[in-house]
């Protein structure tokens, strides 16, 4: 059977990369639990999330809307809403646990060693400051350079994100730029201080399809140039195949499957991953006739006991409903949280 175009792209990408075991970890999230306090009471949104983002590689965090992807990203950046509570866990950036840092120490790292691009380019830039000012302030916050030098560097960054006539754009206000251009500005701003870790939270979701591909390409190219570790959040497995090296599938605040992109597409193991893949039409023939996932994500305040996917899983049994499956290695570098793994449905 001929490999699907998406798969072909995925393996081509991964082959071009170094051995994941050799790439140094930049960010390590360990057993992270994050909850929120609300008027209706408290609930956990992330429950024991662990993954590692390595230098020069892109880890895609994928899952349905509301599963906790943005909360994960914001936890790393220390940007969680005031009602958030970090229960336990560690967020290591180059070995330092960010959760132990003072506000000031965290601020020294934000925008410098780690940076973030958000989903909404239309509202993420300050409407009353020029884009030049907004890039320059980020540079000068972390580097002992004068205004003129920072401006030169900002223009250089705009050039690198392929913004035409960058000198002129410096004096523009955000509303004078299109969504795609604004996202390029956000990327320029995020990469201005050459961060070790770049977090991109659904950076293309709000953009036109043609622009989406350009932005993803740009992130990829810049990563190849700088060796930045990228945590790319998406709900779109097409994007994962396009730019990912590694992938972590998140369901209801837990990582349910983790693998290299090649392995995940070639040998998906978790029933939820299979369901996600079935929504990519071309892959249907590869993994047999799996129904698209029925039902909806349980609310964080109302989690089922046992496996969180058991309310929607076609293979759920009593064991699943009483005991939570741990995320366990199935083969080196491929971990799954499912009692039934390795799945044998594909033969059936």
């Amino acid at each position: 059977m001929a490999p699907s175009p998406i798969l072909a792209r995925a393996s081509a990408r991964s082959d071009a990369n170094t051995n994941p075991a050799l790439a140094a970890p930049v960010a390590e999230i360990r057993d992270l639990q994050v909850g929120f306090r609300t008027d209706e009471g408290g609930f956990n949104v992330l429950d024991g999330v662990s993954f590692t983002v390595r230098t020069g590689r892109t880890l895609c965090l994928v899952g349905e809307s509301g599963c906790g992807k943005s909360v994960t990203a914001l936890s790393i950046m220390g940007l969680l809403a005031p009602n958030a509570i970090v229960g336990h866990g560690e967020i290591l950036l180059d070995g330092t646990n960010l959760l132990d840092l003072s506000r000031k120490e965290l601020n020294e790292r934000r925008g410098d060693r780690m940076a973030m691009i958000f989903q909404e380019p239309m509202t993420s830039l300050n409407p009353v400051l020029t884009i030049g000012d907004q890039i320059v302030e980020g540079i000068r916050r972390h580097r002992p350079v004068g205004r003129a030098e920072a401006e030169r560097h900002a223009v250089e960054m705009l050039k690198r994100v392929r913004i035409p006539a960058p000198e002129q754009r410096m004096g523009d206000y955000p509303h004078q730029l299109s969504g795609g251009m604004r996202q390029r500005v956000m990327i320029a701003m995020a990469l201005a201080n050459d961060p070790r870790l770049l977090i991109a939270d659904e950076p293309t979701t709000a953009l036109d399809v043609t622009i989406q591909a350009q932005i993803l390409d740009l992130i990829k190219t810049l990563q190849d140039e700088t060796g930045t570790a990228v945590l790319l959040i998406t709900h779109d497995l097409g994007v994962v195949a396009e730019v990912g090296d590694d992938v972590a599938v998140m369901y209801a605040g837990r990582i349910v499957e983790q693998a290299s992109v090649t392995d995940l597409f070639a040998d998906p193991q978790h029933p939820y991953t299979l369901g996600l893949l079935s929504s990519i039409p071309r892959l249907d023939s590869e993994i047999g006739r799996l129904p698209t996932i029925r039902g909806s994500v349980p609310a964080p305040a109302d989690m089922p006991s046992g496996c969180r996917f058991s309310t929607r899983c076609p293979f759920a049994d009593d064991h699943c409903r009483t005991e939570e499956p741990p995320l366990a290695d199935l083969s080196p570098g491929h971990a799954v949280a499912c009692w039934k793994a390795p799945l044998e449905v594909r033969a059936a």
Partner: protein
Amino acid sequence: MLAYMARRLAVSIPTLLLISMMVFSLQLLLPGDPALAIAGEERSPEVLAAIREMYHLNDPVPVQYWHWLTGVLSGDMGQSIRSRMPVTELIMTKLPVTLQLATMAMIIALAIGIPAGIVSAVRKGTAWDVGANVVALSGISIPNFWLGIMLIMLVSVQWGLLPASGYASPLEDLSRNLQTMIMPAFVLGTGIAAIMMRHTRSAMLSSLRADYVRTARAKGLSERVVVLRHALRNALIPVVTLGTLQLGELLSGAVLTEQIFTIPGFGKLVVDAVFNRDYAVVQGVVLFTGTAFILMNLLADMLYFLLNPRLRA
């Protein structure tokens, strides 16, 4: 920008005309025969007839309005029947007083209202926030005249710190002038400060929640820079507009406050004129302050425009 200003100005002309009609109809609606008032002691039918002729009182109302309006436009607002002084001149002598009072009140309002609004937004839900809101609510609900009287009783009568009256022009005696103006300015200013605080607070709360503030934090900027540069710059746009409108209101004269502290500004001028049935003065002051109010509205619009890069383009 120019086109916008021109359009905005054109729109205010009908408003101004409407005000002028209302001001003019004052003399038709108020009880009492203006001819009698003008005549004073001399009430022979001949004199009254002559007065009616002279002031066009026999003409149809639209013609009277036309005479009056053309006069006003050429700077002639008639004459005070009391002091026999031209109304324009009366207004010009009172204008600096009201202007000074309004400016001082505005400075007090800004100096209290904006920082208090920022603090209560940043410290939302804390004792700071609750305290500022309680003070602001009292500021809004306590009537100016009551606060004025209390201040006089306490500061002037009880403690003897400041004079309760006895206005002096700043050119003659600056210290005396400031001593007499500070209390009324405080009374007017705190009332506005309360409004400004509430608006600053809500504008700050919404801009602190905005995505661009999160971006600013993601850059590692200090909280001070995030609040003052990123959030406040945006929040100030509606607040500045509001401040300009409030200034317009202050310019229309603070009738009660000026009366209580016997400050000889517009407020006092208009009250005296009403009691004396000095129509021309009432009309002149109302027309002048109404126009000032509209101009301030215009200025507020323009400031909103200028401060907002999205509209400026």
